[in-house]
């Protein structure tokens, strides 16, 4: 039984390619917003990236629906399509939270007097999670996907610790509010990295993520 080309394969390749484009763009969007925060900028380019990610997410969603309608996929093909919708949504959300961070920078203005070290450290951990989620998807690397949740715990803890600190300290409201908001967005990005990792595992093993 030799492998024969199937009509569905063209669509699956197109989906994969769209998702890899989204992966690259969403990484760039988050990096741009973090860079703007740590170096003092506004991340104006993030808006365009986020809009483009939304458009790509719609394309993935439309193509997935079309393929389900036309080819009635099963087994690995069906799992891939289901996972594509989840992963595409994850990449779209990366971009959306990057935009939220850029909007904080725009709204709050100059943050150069704020201590940003803690937030930037957490941002780097989150970026590492994004990188791992993208690589896990690109290579269908289940082992890498399984490492992501442990890092999510670290980012969650950073967010909670920061909240406690802000409640205890009577610091600069602008600084505490901006860092809390940005950490919240980073915490959500980390959650989506975890979901993407779970979807990668689902494609390969068929094991559904825990409810």
């Amino acid at each position, binding site marked *: *039984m030799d492998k024969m080309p*199937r009509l569905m394969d063209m669509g699956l390749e197109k989906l994969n390619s769209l998702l890899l484009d989204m992966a690259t763009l969403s990484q760039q969007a988050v990096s741009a917003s973090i860079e703007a925060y740590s170096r003092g900028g506004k991340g104006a380019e993030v808006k365009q990236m986020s809009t483009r990610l939304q458009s790509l997410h719609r394309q993935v969603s439309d193509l997935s629906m079309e393929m389900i309608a036309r080819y009635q996929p099963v087994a*690995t093909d069906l799992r891939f399509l289901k996972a594509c919708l989840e992963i595409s949504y994850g990449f779209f959300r990366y971009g959306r939270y990057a935009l939220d961070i850029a909007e904080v920078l725009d709204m709050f203005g100059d943050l150069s007097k704020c201590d940003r070290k803690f937030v930037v450290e957490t941002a780097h951990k989150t970026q590492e999670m994004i990188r791992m989620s993208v690589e896990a998807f690109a290579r269908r690397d289940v082992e890498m996907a399984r490492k992501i949740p442990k890092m999510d715990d670290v980012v969650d803890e950073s967010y909670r610790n920061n909240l406690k600190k802000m409640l205890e300290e009577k610091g600069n409201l602008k600084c505490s509010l901006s860092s809390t908001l940005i950490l919240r967005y980073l915490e959500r990005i980390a959650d989506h990295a975890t979901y993407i990792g779970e979807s990668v595992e689902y494609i390969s093993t068929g094991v559904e993520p825990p409810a």
Partner: protein
Amino acid sequence: MQSNHTEKMSSLGLSAWYGEKQALVNVSISMKANSVTAIIGPSGCGKSTYIRCLNRMHELVPKATVTGQVLLDKEDIYGPGVDPVMIRRRVGMVFQKPNPFPTMSIYDNVAAGLKLTGMRRGKSLDDIVKSSLEQAGLWDEVKYDLKKPGTSVSGGQQQRLCIARAIALQPEVILMDEPCSALDPVATAKIEGLMASLKEKYTVVVVTHNMQQASRVADFTAFLYLGKLIEYDETTKIFENPKEDLTERYITGKFG
């Protein structure tokens, strides 16, 4: 495999031959009561042979032989002293091509089996004919045309007439051998809907080469290849996450 269904019928180490040629190799499948079990696989994999063994029709082919067991309510239908005619009454069959008796009316097509058992025309026979046509979802379409020939209705209606004919004998299991392969999508949808309602009263086993049909109608699916059972599981598991690579390749169309 976890299931709330009890077993109605099963094959244990079932092998079948046409002369020297082996068509089934040691197939063991447990079919659950009040469920639809689909048998899928490529042409020549033994799916039709398999269901023909379930009501002892395989042995009607010259030089055809069977080994192993087929249990119906835990009793071997190939056991000594078992009457194959009685088995065929308990395990009815619907074929690929609708085959109403061409010289008989719609009424007589449904009543034919019962008349052979000695039942006379009368109210009880009328009641069974009506009930069978109702269960086959055909009564409203033919109730004023019962005296017309069975072959005068459409192909889809003829197939439902054949299902009514099988039901009239009050079987426990209904075997269907690619029952929709000669029908258009509308008639196919009616037969598929019918399978879902029939399983409330009967155990249904359907052979199909249409995998989407198996995924739509069946509670359990068995995949046969070259006469061997490759995988048998709940339909959702077979079509979402099959255990065997061969099943995966067949259902995703990656067979060469």
